[in-house]
């Protein structure tokens, strides 16, 4: 049908790149989500006026190209003589980037919990923390989940940019093979297919959770 | 004249109209009552061709509505309809809502369309609301605007599909008053309604629909005071 110079070891190389994409995404989404929850609660609790500095700072991560953020992050760690490897730098920058989006999702989720539900909890004698833990968190999580899945998929796609710092993730691995084998279309299509294959389970998992939770409403 | 002959209509396997015959003369007011799912609203959308029919004929002033050669857009200018859900165009002001069809469908110049729209809106008591957007008005006001919007096309016939059913009880009166006014001016109307008192007052004839069949049609005194059909008796007993 068609012939290709692609070998099994090249495929392993691509798989290794995909592994790097997944690793960067997993670390960044995990750290970004934790930060996002903290920032989101702060934004909700302090109101738009007092949390304005935080809002402004986070907005920068959404209004400056990620590529520029990565370059700046790398320059900063070198200025501060932190000696971080590219993987650490990439994850730190991507985590903050993720946190900026996640904060909005979390705040929206908390906002969606009806005031009366919270009043009911407090009037039963629950503390602020108990109200947050047992009433707000479960309700807000359900509302936020679809957006959070979307964010995770978005971060996975955006993680391709860490190639600029020298990390060999999926897209960079494909590019290296393209240069060596001179079969750009075939290898890039393969690369695109791998992105699809990685996205699918995440999207599925999100839909599964949504369905599992919805009968309780 | 609207002539409805043996009209059948189904949605999937559900037959909603099972052979309806009804003739409405010019200047006549016919109200249609009956339980939900009796097919009375479907009949109205079949009259102006918004729904197709399975068999039978609807003839309006000699034009067969469901014939392939009929220009439905032309025909609908003659037959106005107002729905339960008033369907105000939210992106247009009240005046623009009413002016749109005269301008784009009849091709009238702006000044002429505006003159007609102002006249109709004044007629339904909305002269003060010309430059307001529908979202700023009550349901009753929006429904009266929808009536003015239909009237601006100078229709010969008006169809009203439960126009007060979606309104708060407080707002029903103002819309019914508008309909009474139209009836007294000699407009030919078919009104599907749940307002029995209103039906008794304005109608020349009242039709009772039951499960896709027109069980009974008679002048209001006879239908309300001496119903012939057992289903009519049951229905009236339940609604009083």
């Amino acid at each position, binding site marked *: 049908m068609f012939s290709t110079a692609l070998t099994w070891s090249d495929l392993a190389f691509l798989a290794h790149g995909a592994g790097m994409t997944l690793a960067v995404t997993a670390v960044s989404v995990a750290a970004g989500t934790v930060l996002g929850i903290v920032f989101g609660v702060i934004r909700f609790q302090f109101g738009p006026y007092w949390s304005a500095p935080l809002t402004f700072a986070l907005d920068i991560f959404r*209004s400056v190209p990620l590529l520029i953020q990565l370059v700046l992050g790398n320059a900063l760690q070198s*200025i501060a003589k932190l000696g971080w490897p590219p993987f650490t730098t990439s994850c730190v920058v991507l985590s903050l980037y993720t946190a900026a989006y996640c904060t909005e999702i979390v705040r929206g989720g908390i906002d969606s919990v009806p005031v009366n539900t919270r009043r009911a909890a407090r009037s039963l004698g629950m503390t602020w923390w108990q109200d947050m833990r047992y009433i707000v968190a479960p309700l807000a999580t359900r509302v936020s989940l679809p957006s959070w899945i979307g964010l995770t998929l978005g971060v996975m796609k955006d993680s391709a940019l860490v190639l600029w710092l020298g990390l060999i993730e999926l897209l960079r691995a494909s590019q290296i093979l393209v240069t060596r084998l001179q079969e750009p279309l075939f290898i890039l299509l393969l690369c695109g297919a791998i992105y699809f294959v990685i996205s699918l389970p995440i999207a599925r998992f999100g839909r599964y959770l949504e369905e599992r939770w919805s009968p309780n409403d | 004249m609207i002539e409805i002959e043996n009209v059948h209509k189904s949605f999937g396997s559900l037959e909603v109209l099972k052979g309806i015959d009804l003739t409405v003369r010019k200047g006549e007011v016919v109200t249609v009552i009956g339980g939900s799912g009796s097919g009375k609203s479907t009949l109205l959308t079949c009259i102006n061709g918004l729904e197709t029919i399975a068999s039978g004929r609807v003839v309006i002033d000699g034009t067969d509505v469901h014939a392939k050669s009929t220009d439905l857009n032309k025909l609908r200018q003659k037959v106005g309809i107002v729905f339960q859900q008033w369907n105000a165009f939210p*992106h247009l002001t009240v005046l623009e809502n009413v002016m749109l069809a005269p301008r784009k469908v009849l091709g009238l110049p702006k000044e002429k369309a505006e003159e007609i729209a102002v006249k109709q809106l004044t007629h339904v008591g909305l002269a003060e609301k010309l430059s307001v957007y529908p979202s700023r008005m009550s349901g009753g006001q929006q429904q009266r605007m929808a009536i003015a919007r239909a009237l601006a096309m100078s229709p010969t016939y008006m169809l009203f599909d439960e126009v007060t059913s979606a309104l708060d009880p407080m707002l029903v009166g103002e819309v019914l008053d508008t309909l009474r006014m139209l009836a007294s001016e000699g407009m030919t109307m078919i009104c599907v309604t749940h307002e029995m008192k209103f039906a008794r007052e304005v109608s020349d004839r009242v039709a009772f629909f039951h499960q896709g069949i027109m069980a009974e049609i008679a002048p209001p005194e006879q239908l309300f005071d001496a119903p012939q059909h057992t289903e009519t008796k049951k229905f009236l007993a339940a609604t009083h």
Partner: protein
Amino acid sequence: MFSYTFHWNQAFRALPQMLDGALVTLEIALLSMAIGLALAIALTVFRLSGNRVLSGVATAWVEVARNTPALFQIYMAHFGLGNFGIHLSPFTALLAGIAFNNAGYLAENFRGALKAIPETQARAGRSLGMSSLQAFRYIVLPQMLRVAFLPATNQMVWAILMTSLGVTVGMSSDLAGVTQELNARSFRTFEFFALAAVIYYLIAKAVTLAARLLAARMFRY
């Protein structure tokens, strides 16, 4: 801790060059939006056409645009088309990649907007004697534009941010490209890129503000 001395003067002296780059950035973003809009309208028509092949093409386009990295799409234009003997310049490849991405996201946006307008609106228009085209043109379309407007302006901001990816395929005239060239000559990475970040931020905010003002004028209801 910081033994590094910042040299901001060098960066500020390069400001005119960088602003020229910013103009190129804006130009690519606007062009890609215009092309993307035209393609998105075509894709929306394809998806509604009922023709299997056309709607299949449109669906595939939207899926690829939304589920692969924007950089991947630019690489496809830059390297992938080489298989067919087509070699695009960095500018064209970047423009093609972003336009492809815009078209996919905008088409999905249009579909959502179309769904958001109740069918009864068109029906009300038809009952006044309008043709289906008239009902769409005067009743559905204006309402659809309002729903689609905000997501479309977000896409415009995305397009501006995406232009920075051109530097990875050798683009040197846009803001990121100019900054990278300056950086390669001076190694004042932080200063140059920080200034670039500020310019990107200001452009993004200006576009958002302009869109909001425009929306307030266009949609009064």
